């Protein structure tokens, strides 16, 4: 199955525009320094020890908060979802196993790999560049990582939807007929291991942007978990007229439950569901810029994939290493690339 010519053309066009967007924060920083006369690398050279101490204390404080704080946040959100009965009995034994296995894999498998990448691979690939750009001011560091990390994830995600041979690596994330905080980590392990933005951000941390990365990743974790959650926190913004201007900005800037739930809908022709777009993770702005956005301020009636018949959890977690036993499934040994 080949990629549609029109889709391919749009990918190329939007990809070229992305090169400019990636460069935008650095270009703006350059212009600011040029006109204000700031030269932060000179300050770093003069006062490297206090600055380094500042970053280290910052990382010591926020590091555990980012690791355990986010896990605790997801846990509390999960309890809330259960106590409100938001899964409505659709969390079957197989779905439970899939969600838990995917959640655990993201901690057990991915973290050691990323740590190894940061400690062993990066010093080898970028020798002598550790903390080379530690002079980048905090604000600009946050801006650079916001764009670099999230735009890369947008592209990684979009390609897995629009390139037919990549779809099956992402299918697990869409197979559940419900939405909830567990969906954020419900991914095929190979999809997660090769998440491009993880390695890009790890490289930026190695280059000296550790402090800004902590802030961005913490914020991103909260936004993406809430966008997948079955708690519709954005509803009051649509109902209350006074809040409509805030809603207008919010739904175009970040992923909200309404826009991201639309991405997980099992239909795309009812004016609400839109699995052909709304690919943004932390920022929805990428969808607005590249024309893949659909905003309806409503929630889909049903989620998942219409032809899903409950592939075994191990096949969903580890395809193509393990295949599904469901006849005709996209994850079966002789299954179609896209059904």
């Amino acid at each position, binding site marked *: 199955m080949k990629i549609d010519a029109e889709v391919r053309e749009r990918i190329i066009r939007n990809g070229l525009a992305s*090169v400019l967007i*990636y*460069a935008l924060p*650095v*270009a703006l*920083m*350059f212009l600011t*320094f*040029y006109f204000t006369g700031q*030269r932060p*690398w000179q300050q770093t050279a003069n006062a490297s020890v206090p600055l380094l101490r500042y970053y280290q204390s910052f990382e010591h404080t926020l590091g555990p908060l980012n690791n355990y704080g986010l896990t605790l946040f997801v846990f509390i959100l999960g309890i809330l979802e259960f106590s409100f009965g938001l899964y409505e009995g659709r969390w079957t034994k197989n779905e439970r196993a899939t969600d838990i296995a995917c959640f655990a894999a993201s901690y057990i498998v991915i973290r050691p790999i990323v740590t190894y990448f940061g400690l062993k691979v990066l010093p080898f690939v970028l020798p002598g560049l550790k903390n080379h*750009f530690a*002079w*980048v001011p905090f604000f600009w560091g946050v801006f*650079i990582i916001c764009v*670099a990390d999230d*735009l*890369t994830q947008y*592209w*990684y995600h979009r*390609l897995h939807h629009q*390139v037919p*041979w*990549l779809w099956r*690596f992402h299918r697990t994330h869409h197979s559940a007929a419900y939405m909830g905080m567990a969906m954020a980590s419900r991914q095929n392990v*190979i999809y997660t291991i*090769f*998440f*491009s*933005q993880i*390695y*890009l951000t790890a*490289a*930026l941390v190695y*280059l000296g942007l550790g402090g800004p990365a902590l802030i961005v990743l913490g914020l991103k974790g909260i936004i993406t978990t809430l966008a997948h959650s079955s708690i519709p926190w954005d509803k009051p913004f649509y109902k209350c007229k006074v809040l409509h201007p805030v809603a207008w900005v919010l739904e175009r800037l970040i992923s909200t439950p309404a826009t991201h739930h639309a991405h997980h809908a099992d239909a795309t022709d009812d004016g609400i569901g839109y699995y052909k777009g709304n690919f943004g993770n932390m920022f929805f702005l990428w969808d607005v810029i590249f024309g893949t956005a659909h905003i309806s301020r409503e929630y889909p009636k049903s989620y998942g994939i219409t032809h899903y018949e409950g592939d075994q959890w191990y096949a969903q977690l580890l395809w*193509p*290493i393990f295949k599904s036993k469901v006849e005709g499934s996209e994850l079966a040994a002789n299954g179609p690339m896209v059904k």
Partner: protein
Amino acid sequence: MRLQDVTLLVKKILVGVVATAVPLLILLGGLHFTRKALTSKSATEQISSQAK
């Protein structure tokens, strides 16, 4: 796992590598250029002010 699965995995990894390398190279180049261009600009300005 069959040979076609391995081919698929290799292709997928290549997509991931490109998606990581392109922004990384843009940022590395941009940050390096920022420092280099503005350092040489400051040095030139210093030399010309000393000459006056």
